[in-house]
């Protein structure tokens, strides 16, 4: 059978064809965008990163992307196949007629499969185009607002893979639905009592004591049992996705911002020689500006800060904490180690390799650090001269299981006590006791000083500090400015991702519209009769709204807790959510559910606007 007949048929049912195609296009676009945009941000999707010991900011984003992509793909394929099943169910009498006049089942199958293929290919092509455009716009937007993202060349294989994944899954599920529908006997399909997608007797159990509206609504849902169950499945999946997008997205955004805030510290100023201060600021900014830091000799004596000045600055009113540091660049060497085999008793396995990593080393007094950036393990104690904390990027790139491994630096071995998230040098940083690191370089002194100051007297304290360093070669840099840039970057990054999750709302709306259209098809006669008997248009709307509401509530009961569970179980350790965001999250989820319920009534509005006589005749 050529494609011209299916094309004509699809054109005649424009609204349904557009709805199904757009639904698929949105899912393909979302998936393509998430993967491409994730790659551009350096958070490549990799199942291997999930479940590792280290948790970095990029991993939070990549996990978010991964989970959303998986759920989105599932929801997209389920919804599309469901809409295809609705389109096929609506044609059940046509199928009966085709079979009754001698059309072979194979031909009927070929006809509907051709329609499915047309919709799938159109949806996948449109979705791929939308996804690529959305990625380009987002990258350009990020660059336009001042955050440099090097656009990667389009990964054609990723795009092709997404296309093939959606096209094949939609075909498999769609064909399954078609086969289920076309198996009907012509005599059943043409029977007077057979209404679309309904079973005759189900719904008897629903008691008469319920109000008239709810009774009719529930019985109608029960009679289209198969479609109702599929619908609840699709909506549950979409609501899970939306809960994850809204709640998980906001939690992820706030958690990553909190990581950075804790890592840099609030009301912290940097005191260093001008060139060193510029270098440190540049190292901090590598997080959102991937340009290489200038090579400098960190151990140059000109950068040294005297103990007396440190103590002098520490005594200024308003200075809460002094955190003097020795910073330099070095290479660390991973040591493999032997650990008990988790899968076998009394057996041991070797983990790790002989990898190396160029890092920024920071000598610190562990009790004086202004950062609160630990995400795994513990800080080293002052007496642990060979203890070290490592940044999450070092942990991810250089170690298999950092807390079990050791590394070597300048012939000294260090035990890793913890992992931290630190934007310095984009996480390629290690912290060790100042005494140990200083001894490696001939008892070198401090070359960097961080001061945490009282935020209530911020300006006055800054003036006092500047007065003290006025006659030295040191400068003051307020790290709040740098911190705000980091937070703004994260804000923009998540702002690019979060609104796109709203497209899942569109999916839900299409899904409900499709279902309610089917519901109306099968109830049109009943609704016409009710109107003939004196029921007002709003009674019809109430009945259809009740059906929509029941579907959304049941799906919400499944989807919302599932979305919350996914967020907390697989997504973010030490999740943070501010009290001010909680009402926004709850409000957004309720609003989304309300929009979904109301959208289901749209087809009803059309039918109630038609004159009663016309409704009965149709």
């Amino acid at each position, binding site marked *: 059978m050529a494609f011209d007949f299916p094309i004509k048929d699809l054109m005649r049912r424009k609204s349904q064809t557009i709805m199904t195609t757009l639904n698929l296009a949105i899912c393909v676009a979302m998936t393509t965008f998430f993967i491409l945009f994730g790659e551009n941000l350096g958070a490549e999707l990799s199942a291997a990163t999930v479940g590792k010991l280290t948790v970095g900011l990029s991993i939070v984003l990549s996990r978010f992307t991964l989970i959303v992509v998986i759920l989105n793909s599932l929801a997209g394929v389920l919804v599309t196949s469901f809409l295809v099943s609705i389109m096929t169910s609506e044609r059940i009498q046509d199928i009966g007629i085709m079979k009754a006049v001698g059309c072979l089942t194979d031909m009927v199958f070929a006809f509907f499969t051709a329609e499915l293929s047309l919709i799938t290919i159109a949806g996948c092509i449109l979705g791929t185009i939308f996804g690529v455009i959305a990625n380009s716009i987002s990258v350009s937007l990020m660059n336009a607002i001042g955050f440099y993202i090097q656009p990667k060349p389009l990964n054609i294989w990723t795009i092709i893979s997404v296309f093939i994944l959606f096209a094949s899954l939609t075909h498999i599920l769609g064909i399954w639905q078609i086969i289920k529908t076309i198996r009907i006997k012509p005599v059943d399909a043409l029977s007077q009592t057979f209404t679309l997608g309904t079973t005759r007797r189900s719904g008897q159990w629903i008691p008469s004591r319920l109000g008239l509206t709810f009774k009719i609504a529930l019985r109608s849902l029960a009679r289209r049992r198969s479609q109702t169950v599929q619908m609840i499945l699709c909506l549950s999946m979409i609501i899970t996705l939306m809960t994850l997008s809204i709640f998980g997205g906001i939690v992820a955004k706030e958690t990553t911002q909190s990581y950075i805030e804790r890592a840099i510290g609030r009301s912290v100023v940097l005191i260093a020689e001008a060139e060193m201060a510029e270098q440190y600021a540049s190292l901090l900014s590598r997080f959102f500006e991937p340009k290489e830091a200038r090579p400098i000799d960190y151990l140059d004596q000109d950068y040294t800060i005297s103990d007396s000045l440190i103590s002098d600055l520490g005594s200024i009113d308003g200075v809460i904490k002094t955190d003097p540091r020795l910073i330099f660049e070095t290479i660390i060497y991973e040591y493999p180690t032997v650990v008990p085999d988790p899968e076998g008793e009394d057996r041991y396995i070797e983990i790790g390799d002989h990898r190396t990593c160029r890092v920024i080393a920071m000598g610190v007094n562990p009790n004086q650090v202004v950062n609160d950036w630990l995400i795994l393990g513990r800080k080293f104690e002052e007496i642990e001269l060979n203890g070290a904390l490592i940044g999450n990027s070092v942990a991810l790139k250089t170690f298999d299981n950092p807390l079990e491994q050791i590394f070597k630096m300048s012939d000294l071995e260090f035990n890793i006590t913890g992992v931290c998230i630190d934007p310095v040098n984009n996480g390629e940083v290690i912290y060790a006791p100042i005494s140990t690191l200083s001894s490696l370089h001939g008892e070198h002194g401090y070359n960097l000083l961080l001061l945490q100051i009282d935020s209530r007297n911020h300006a006055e304290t800054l003036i006092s500090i500047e007065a003290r360093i006025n006659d030295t070669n040191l400068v003051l840099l307020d790290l709040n400015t740098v911190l705000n840039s980091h937070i703004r970057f994260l804000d923009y990054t998540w702002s690019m991702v979060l609104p796109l999750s709203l497209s899942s709302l569109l999916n839900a709306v299409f899904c409900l519209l499709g279902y309610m259209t089917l519901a109306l098809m099968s109830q049109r006669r009943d609704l016409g009769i009710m109107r003939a*008997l004196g029921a007002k248009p709003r009674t019809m709307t109430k009945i259809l709204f009740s059906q929509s509401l029941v579907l959304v509530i049941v799906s919400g009961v499944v989807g919302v807790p599932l979305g919350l569970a996914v967020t907390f179980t697989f997504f973010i350790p030490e999740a943070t959510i501010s009290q001010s965001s909680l009402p926004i999250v709850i409000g957004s989820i309720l609003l989304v559910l309300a929009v979904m319920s109301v959208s289901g009534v749209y087809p009803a509005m059309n039918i109630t606007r038609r004159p*009663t*006589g016309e409704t009965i005749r149709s």
Partner: protein
Amino acid sequence: MSKSDLAVKASSLRKEYTIDGLRIEALRSLELEIKEGEFVSIYGSSGAGKTTLLNIIGGLDKPTDGQIIVLGHDLSEYDEDFLATFRCAYVGYVFQLYNLISTLTVLENVMFPMQLAGWQEKRIMERCTELLELVGLTHRSDHFPAQLSGGELQRTAFARALANNPPLILADEPTANLDLETGLKIIRILEGLKGEKTVIVATHDERIIDLSERVLNLEDGRIVSNGF
């Protein structure tokens, strides 16, 4: 004849449909008066406009032109909400294809107009018992329409039409799809209404025509004979 005695008065009534750009005139300048309590049959060939006329009298459809006054209400002036209230209170409609609500049982179908009218539950149940006894379907009250025969469906439709005790009963080919014996049961119900209510029946059934006080012959949207 006093104007207040009129149940239905149609003046220059015209109804036109447009299907795919093709104009079809279902009723042409129709003039009609039916007294309260009168039993009138309308007969005519298929497509003559019988169902259209019944739909306009019943407030299901609006005329394209002309005036239709039913029980003192000019239906061409009212909106959908008022027409719904009017149908519920004043009209009992029996359709050719029964048109029962498929998701409701026999009892619930009969209850439906009374629930719309806001009757008390107790009164509804009493009236339902009375009506189901009248049409002989007490034993089928909990069955769904899909489980009933054609005659039972039509009798349920009659019980539902009488539910709110409306002054006007409209029946569109009530015996067309029934065998002789089942048709007779329906005719007996109609006979019981004679003199009590205004009854307008579109039919080809000679037995109903014999029962009528007046017969209107409709052809091509016009009344060509009016009398017995």
